[in-house]
């Protein structure tokens, strides 16, 4: 199984994990790690590295971050040569729910590309969608 780690600012990673658990009832293949700006950068990096390492069952880890170029993302990018991992920046909940569905029967790199596309495809402007449904589009 491909491990999935959510890495984000503040409590965001743990809240995403809680929402995924609430919806699916079982998100055992997902884990969350927060980046705390109150610790020094080296310690934060070590915490994130350990979270990713712990999630690796041998098939690699997909790390999803909240914002490309933000500190959680930058830390993960700095680990890319040390760990078997892919990074998607711009996590959303549809992406996480799809990750649960894919992680047992997909390889890391295929899963990363599928989830990036799935996350993009599931951002909607609700008024457009409703107008089409009501015949106003």
């Amino acid at each position, binding site marked *: 199984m491909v491990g999935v780690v959510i890495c984000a*600012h503040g409590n965001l990673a743990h809240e995403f994990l809680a929402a995924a658990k609430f919806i699916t009832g079982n998100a055992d293949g997902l884990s969350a790690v927060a980046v705390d*700006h109150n610790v*020094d*950068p080296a310690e934060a990096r070590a915490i994130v590295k350990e979270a990713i390492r712990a999630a690796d069952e041998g098939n690699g880890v997909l790390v999803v971050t909240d*914002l*490309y*170029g*933000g*500190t959680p*993302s*930058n*830390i993960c*990018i*700095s680990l890319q040569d040390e760990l078997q991992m892919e990074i998607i920046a711009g996590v959303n909940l549809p992406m996480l729910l799809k990750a649960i569905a894919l992680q047992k029967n997909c390889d890391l790199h295929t899963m990363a590309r599928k989830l990036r596309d799935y996350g993009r495809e599931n951002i909607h402007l609700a008024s457009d969608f409703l107008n089409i449904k009501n015949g106003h589009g």
Partner: protein
Amino acid sequence: MATAEVGIASPWGMHARLAFHLSALCRTFPCAIHIAFRGQRADAKEMTDILLLAAGPDAVVTLEAEGEGEEDALEKVRQFLLVDAKAL
């Protein structure tokens, strides 16, 4: 065009809060301001553009200002990255 190289004072390098406030500062100037790092160049008035540089700890970036008030803008942005960035 006015240019300057500056090390980002934050131990985290560029990060979200810093990019947000940097872009807000840059939008107060009429001139165009760009920030370059490792061969990539970003519009310093756009937060997400700045973050695409992924300028982590110890990053030294190049600032470029062009147009009305470019010298003044460059100096204020330089000071922001050298001084104010520590507190963000």
